[in-house]
């Protein structure tokens, strides 16, 4: 069965979520992944949007993180102070999803600038809630398309810390969350070993060489390298017909 890279990424992200977990959701692929998980194996997943909608059950695909469809029929609306102080800093968030313009070998993420901060070649949007999600969520899942430019050995600017300089980097800085646990790209899935991004599974059709050609360093590979399970027909039907019927993200 045919499927797009985005569809596979959504399915793989959904599989990382366990029933009953509390997830800090972003718009786009993370939102699709969470709603897919909720429809399949995790009916009690609690979705929290940084805009303050808790337990949202949107009747249409949300276009922005503050979409009114996230409010109508949700279980609670709270202020952004509550979102960040009580939910995130309060330790209630199990999983946060992050993306970024650059991700490096330690899982540090840059969404601020390409080039120098004071005179950037490209000014990116900045942190939003990403810096604190990276520090405070129990674990972080990164979803991003992969290229040599977007996966450098070292990001130009650390907006959201991953494993910082490597093993023990987070603990030394006293960060509550365990940081990024997986990275899902259009080519492969990665985990972290001693704070270093490590290839764990190849998407169907990808090769280690292809993955390495699209990264800025020679990535480590686990010995039991797996193949990422492709989307099932049921997953694809849900994504295409129900979750994103206008195919905005897939």
């Amino acid at each position, binding site marked *: 069965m045919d499927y797009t890279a985005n569809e596979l990424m959504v399915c793989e992200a959904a599989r990382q979520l366990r029933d009953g977990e*509390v997830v800090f959701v972003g718009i786009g692929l993370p939102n699709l992944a969470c709603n897919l998980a909720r429809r399949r194996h995790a009916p009690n997943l609690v979705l929290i949007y940084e805009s303050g909608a*808790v*337990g949202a059950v949107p009747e249409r695909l949300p276009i922005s993180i503050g979409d009114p469809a996230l*409010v*109508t029929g949700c*279980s609670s*609306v709270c202020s952004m102070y509550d979102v960040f102080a009580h939910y995130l800093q*309060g330790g209630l968030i199990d999983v946060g999803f992050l993306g970024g313009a650059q991700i490096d070998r330690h899982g540090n993420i840059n969404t601020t600038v390409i080039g120098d901060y004071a005179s950037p070649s490209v000014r990116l949007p900045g942190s939003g809630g990403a810096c604190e999600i990276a520090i405070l969520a129990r674990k972080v899942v990164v979803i991003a398309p992969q290229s040599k430019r977007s996966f450098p050995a070292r990001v130009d600017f650390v907006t959201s810390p991953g494993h910082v300089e490597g093993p023990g980097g987070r603990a030394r800085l006293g960060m509550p969350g365990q940081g990024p646990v997986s990275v899902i790209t259009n080519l492969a899935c990665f985990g972290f070993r001693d704070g270093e991004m490590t290839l764990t599974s190849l998407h169907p059709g990808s090769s280690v060489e292809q993955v390495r050609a699209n990264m800025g360093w020679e990535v480590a590979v686990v010995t039991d390298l797996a193949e990422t399970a492709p989307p099932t027909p049921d997953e694809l039907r849900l994504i295409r017909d129900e979750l994103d019927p206008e195919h905005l993200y897939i």
Partner: protein
Amino acid sequence: MTGTGDKVMSMAEAIGRFVTDGCTLVIEGFTHLICFAAAHEIIRQGRRDLTLCRLTPDLVYDQMIAAGCARKVVFSWAGNPGAGPLYAFRRAVERGIPHPLEIEEYSHYGMVARFAAGAARLPFYPLRDYQGSDLARVNPRIRDVTCPFTGERLAAVPPLNPDVAIIHVQRADRLGNAHVWGLLGVQKEAAFASDKVIIVAEEIVDEAAIRADPNRTLIPGLIVDAVVLEPFGCHPSYAQGYYDRDNGFYVQWRDISTDTASLDTWLQEWVHGVASRAEYAEKLGDRLQALRAREHLSPPVNYGY
């Protein structure tokens, strides 16, 4: 996985499961929504050595102190609101009756800040307070912190993170998502600050009724461990829209509590002498019915888009 599944249970079960001897407990509610039903069940189950936290110990902790449940009280104003002192509290502090009571004392803002720090899992909370007061002198948990921008010194209090919070609400669904209106006190912060949360509700409603007005949700189900249905669970305190405060009882308490004998008699009759809040409500009879609220409904808002 606090967030999932039906959490409805009886008060006896909720107290039996979550309130253990020696634990730190908060039953919040500022005048409004004070859960006497939970306090009475704790007394009936004979809990001991509790650290009781509340801004205003009120009659609810006066009764628990008299019943011998308390080892310590963390508070900011210990009076009978509108009717004088709390005699059981005073006997314990002044004369160690029924046994000595440790106290840890703040002002209201200090207690609010402790719950705010607890809810946000901050190790301290800064506030402009306590300069020139002796409160900081007698409480080593009130300290100074230096502002990293201006260099000025502010007061700081540590977080308060109780083991259990008991929060009475007007209506909740079976997952614990709870609507509260009228005075809100410090309930949201106390609930987020606590490890376990017991929601006691005047009504248990369909999830859809909560989702029909999500801005009214003060406590989200994902932090709730138990949901107890207990109509009239606040008497002699009140629940806006359900029943009025029994101001007469607050005045009567003055006489009931001035000596230990009459207080014990009252506990025997009204706490030990009933098996549950339902029996208590039945025993109160017309007195309770006379407190029922009149109707004063809010207009709707539109959540459509």
